[in-house]
């Protein structure tokens, strides 16, 4: 008997040893070629080196050489049409092996049981860089892709900075009028009024816009479901300064989740906005004009709200029209306690998924591993990085702040370019290029970031300007975001939200424009609760474990 146990034990032990010896290698090359079919998101006018194409380029060859993975396009689509094509593929159950999806598509595919469980695959095959980035999200990545205890997708990770809405102000106008940067809402009001009355832009009468607003169909503020980050030309900071967080779920007085749009603070904020509008401080054509950026590019707008990256757009066009427009970003207006209390948003809006039944789910993860490890060795000028197959942007959450600090250190002479090659900085793929571009875009003095000390025509200007000036307001600020991390859907949201949101949008915009009285807000709250809002609140609380 003892002998049998001993043999059995030895057998198991050796089995275990064998298994470990076969342990998954995140960068392992397959013995025989593995084909992965993808729906490729391409730029149809993108340039390739001679002979290359979306299906055959330096990245697909990299996949073959490094992992023995053959990438095949079952269909191709531009960025603009990608969602349409993907929705069609999902709806007709005609799926590629791996694909990059958004959150609505993820939920739909889960419901349709079209996804492969990636729990094991992730555990075994996720490379160290992927795991490090995941860990740095403090649990949001886990929450975004874990359903019923199983990991069903690899989340993209974008910087939380995309979620902070800053106040972009024409500093040259402030300087011309001898005004200080506004801190409180009252300050903001006074500055906007001064811009309009005193016309520092020398514009034709009646065309100055104090505070820029949204365009036709644009949102008044971000919301948890459709547009939780990258909110611009809206009024998020004004709401935040009034202590309101409409569009998101926040902690109520008892700590339990409540919907921000039905809180009394939102009512007060709407009254304030209506007052601003009546006084002519806000774009008279808000929510009706064709293009929110038109006023900015034409040099008519003095203040608008948006995240850090406006150096990309619309500033280059704005600079062409007005080379002296000194757009600077500030973490204002402050709330009643003198603090900047923005909301943020979801860092996970893109997901890498694998269709159920595909024999090699780890191939998708290996491709991501390769990207993260080697991307800063690729020549992205010759072939754009977007052509990397099933590329999901997985960056470090502190990418922006690290980039900014590095840029400033180099400008001030504290560090050199060589300090940023490799090592810890491998996870920050754009960093080296950023550092190298600094002197191309920034003129001395290097500690003054006003517009005249930049070369705004350089192609590198958008990014560097965005990092340094856009990242300035909060890089040394400590603050708390006002919303709860709930960005998905519930059962009742699926059936009732369209009607509730319509009511919300219609009521709020009409209150601001003066078409409806402030009392319409109370009616809205009553209806909202009765027509499904209370049920949804209960469901959200359940999701959050409250």
């Amino acid at each position, binding site marked *: 008997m003892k002998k049998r146990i001993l043999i059995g034990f030895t057998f198991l032990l050796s089995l275990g040893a064998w298994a470990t010896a076969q342990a998954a290698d995140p960068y392992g090359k397959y013995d025989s070629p593995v084909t992965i079919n993808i729906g490729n998101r391409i730029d149809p006018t993108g340039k390739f080196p001679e002979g290359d194409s979306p299906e055959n380029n330096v990245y697909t060859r990299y996949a073959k050489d490094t992992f023995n993975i053959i990438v095949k396009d079952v269909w191709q689509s531009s960025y603009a049409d990608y969602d349409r094509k993907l929705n069609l593929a999902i709806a*007709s*159950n005609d799926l590629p092996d791996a694909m990059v999806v958004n959150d609505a598509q993820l939920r739909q595919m889960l419901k349709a049981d079209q996804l492969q469980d990636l729990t094991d695959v992730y555990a075994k095959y996720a490379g160290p860089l992927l795991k490090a980035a995941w860990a740095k999200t403090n649990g949001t990545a886990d929450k975004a892709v874990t359903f019923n205890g199983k990991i069903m997708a690899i989340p993209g990770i974008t910087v939380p900075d995309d979620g902070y809405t800053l106040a972009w102000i024409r500093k040259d106008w402030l300087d011309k009028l001898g005004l200080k940067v506004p801190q409180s809402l009252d300050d903001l009001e006074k500055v906007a009024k001064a811009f309009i009355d005193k016309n520092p832009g020398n514009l034709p009468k009646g065309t100055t816009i104090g505070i820029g607003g949204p365009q*036709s169909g644009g949102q008044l503020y971000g919301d948890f479901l*459709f547009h939780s980050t990258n909110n611009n030309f809206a009024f998020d900071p004004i709401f935040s300064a009034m202590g309101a967080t409409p569009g998101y779920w926040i902690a109520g007085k008892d700590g339990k989740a409540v919907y921000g749009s039905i809180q009394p603070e939102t009512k007060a904020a709407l009254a304030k906005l209506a007052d601003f509008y009546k006084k002519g401080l806000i774009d008279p*054509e808000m929510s*009706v004009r064709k293009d929110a950026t038109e006023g900015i590019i034409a040099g008519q707008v003095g203040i608008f709200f948006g995240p850090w990256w406006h150096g990309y757009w619309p500033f280059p066009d704005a600079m062409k029209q007005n080379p002296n427009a000194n757009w600077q970003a500030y973490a204002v207006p402050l709330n009643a306690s003198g603090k900047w209390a923005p909301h943020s948003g979801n860092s996970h809006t893109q997901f890498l998924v694998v269709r159920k039944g595909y024999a090699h789910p780890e191939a998708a993860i290996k491709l991501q591993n390769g990207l993260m490890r080697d991307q800063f060795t690729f020549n992205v000028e010759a072939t754009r990085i977007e052509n990397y197959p099933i590329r999901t942007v997985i960056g470090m959450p502190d990418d922006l702040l690290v980039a900014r600090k590095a840029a400033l250190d180099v400008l001030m002479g504290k560090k050199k370019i060589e300090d940023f090659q490799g090592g810890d900085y491998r996870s920050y793929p754009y960093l080296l290029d950023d550092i190298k571009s600094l002197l191309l875009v920034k003129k001395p003095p290097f500690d003054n970031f006003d517009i005249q000390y930049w070369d705004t025509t350089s192609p590198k200007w958008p990014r560097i300007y965005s990092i340094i000036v856009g990242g300035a307001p909060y890089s040394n600020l400590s603050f708390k975001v006002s919303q709860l991390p709930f960005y998905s859907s519930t059962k009742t949201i699926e059936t009732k939200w*369209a009607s509730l949101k*319509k009511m919300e949008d219609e009521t709020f915009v009409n209150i601001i424009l003066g078409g409806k009285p402030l009392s319409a807000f109370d009616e809205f709250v009553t209806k909202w609760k009765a*027509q499904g809002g209370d049920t949804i609140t209960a469901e959200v609380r359940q999701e959050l474990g409250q």
Partner: protein
Amino acid sequence: MRNRGLSKHYYLMLLPGFAWLLLFSILPMFGLVMAFQDYNPGQGVLGSPWVGWDNFQYLLELDDSRTIFFNTVYISVLKILGNLLVPLVFALLLNELRLGFLKKSIQTIAYLPHFLSWVILGGIMLDLFSLHGPVNHLLSAFGVRPVSFFGRADLFPGLAVGSDVWKEFGYNAIFYLAALTGISESLYESASIDGATRWQQLWTVTLPGISTTIVLLTVLSLGNVLNAGFDQIFNLYNPIVYSTGDIVDTWVYRSGLINLQYSLATAAGLIKSFVGFLLIVLAYFLADKYAQYRIF
């Protein structure tokens, strides 16, 4: 006897057309079943759970279903009327022109707006009617204060209908122009000899001559009574004008942003098709019974 022999030939002639119809129109109609299901792509049409009338009930019992259906009907009826009358009048007027060169160029130019997509045209409309735009400039010359056209729910249907009619009248006029060619010149001659003025000739010769075309186009456009034009409305509307501008299609579209709503969209489409078809059938039988005329 002869007729039965001919039937064989007629069926042969119909073969390609109906084969085409069968494969590409009739066969896909199996998808209409989705309207009665809670369609799940993983299970497909054959496996998705059956929910009967639930989707229809949902659409019709929405808190603002009255509004969206009313808006839809209101806008599409106005469009139907506009898209029937304006091209007709235009075709008749054009027909009166003597200078062939003028006639040809005006007609060609009128046809061009058809090529503008609503993405572009929507933007143009928003600019045209903006507070500092040309229309308001014109109004201020008459002392009228600037109007925020697209910020007024009461003006939205008019703007939508007007711009759509403007966009399509040149294109729609082609039907009438083609029909006008079928009126024999001798009819005009005899009417003229009988002393009819141009105005009278219009009513005794021209209009009766194209009456079948007018009736046909009218009846066929009844099929669109719930089709207020998604592309256009989507590119023109905003939350301020939801109360008059939100139609069934835009509502379903926004609903689909939350979760891809195949069943709901199919149900909405089915309602539109059904109502349109019903009206056409009704019109057909009324014409048959009371005018002894079969429209097609």
